[in-house]
């Protein structure tokens, strides 16, 4: 789902990054946000809603709406649409509120 060539833009996606999503190793690129890297791998469901446990994806992608909250390296409620992907990150879908440790 990556754009290979574009008439206006050039994407400098050079350095690959490995990360763990729900126990599975996935690849993204340096400069990706967590949500963008997941979407590029076809992952659209980032969490489940608080009461009805409905699937949640991102909505605004610029840190306004909090629809993309996930648990990252054990920390709940991370806005994955504006958080950069890092090597070895452990990313998990979040059920409802998540647990604050």
């Amino acid at each position: 789902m990556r754009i290979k060539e574009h008439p206006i833009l050039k994407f400098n996606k050079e350095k690959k990054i490995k990360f763990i999503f729900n126990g599975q190793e996935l690849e993204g690129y340096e400069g990706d946000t967590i949500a963008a890297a997941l979407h590029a791998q076809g992952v659209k469901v980032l969490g489940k809603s608080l009461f009805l446990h409905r699937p949640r994806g991102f909505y605004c992608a610029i840190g306004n709406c909090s629809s993309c909250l996930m648990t990252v390296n054990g920390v709940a409620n991370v806005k994955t649409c504006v958080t950069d992907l890092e090597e070895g990150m452990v990313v998990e879908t979040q059920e409802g509120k998540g647990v604050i440790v």
Partner: protein
Amino acid sequence: MKQAEIVVIGGGPAGLCAAMSAAKSGAGVLIIDRNKSLGGQLVKQTHMFFGSEKQYASTRGIDIPEILLKELAKYKDKVEIKTNSTAVGFYEDGVITVLEKEDKYYKVEPKAVVVATGAYEKFLSFPNNDLPGIYGAGAVQTLMNVHGVKPGNRVLMVGAGNIGLIVSYQLMQAGVKVAAILDAAPKIGGYLVHASKIRRMGVPILTSHTVKEAIGKDFLEKAVVCKVDEKFNPIPGTEITFDVDVMCISVGLTPLNELLAMRGCRMKYVPQLSGLVPVRDENYETTVENIFVAGDASGVEEASAAMVEGYLAGLCAAAKIGYKPDDFYERRKDYMNQLNNLRSGPAARHILAGLDQIRR
């Protein structure tokens, strides 16, 4: 407590121009922006801008931050930039609290402030509107134009305003199929030159249509749309089902300006300016002295107007705290003329009607 002469909150088109304008007058400026780099939403606007030369017409939006930052660099001893920094509070005593990278939290006490915090995307209610795959049009623009990731294979665009039209075109440039563009209004809301360039790519524009429901288990699989009558009521029997994995919601923006309300600026709901906006005078000063506003936070408009509002607010904020250059009146008149010119046509009639309700 950090001291500053002028704090500009938000480093998008309005904020950058405000900072530049204030620094040019000689004031010290601190720019606070929550993103990792400046430019706001310009960074994903791959299309050429409208307007005239002074607002960088015919230049692609993505290239404008570099032009503005280069200009701003001329005043680098006057300007401090704090990225990854969110202004989280703006208190009655004039103090702004800033959260930097989630771990540093401090206070700033400025003499004047320009709030240029932009806007956020509106949402639309219909059954299953929360399914993943249903995204703001601006979100999709960020995903594909900033990160180089396609949102999906086939898109239904909801809203035929400028953003809906532009993002549809950009989706096609990224190699994504656009099934249709719909709008509940009986007429296309965006510039018709945009509409024509999408229509001649073969994409139908369905006016007087709305979303009836989204269908899908874990994410969007189908969208059902239907016609609406003059009162926007759905007409039974007119349903069309689209097999799409992405739906873009582009039904307008709302000013993002809670900091001004928190500070105690008088706010007023003005539908033509897309929501709650601060009451201000012609210099863009709000009802609280030395607190200015610019760009979409003052009412949703085109980026070209946001830049000019920024120049004007920055100039006037600097003048209020003692940095009044010799050519103050000349510059102010130029900015006001530019704004009048951008707003004098039929495409901005609603903006003028909105501004009439908001002047201090």
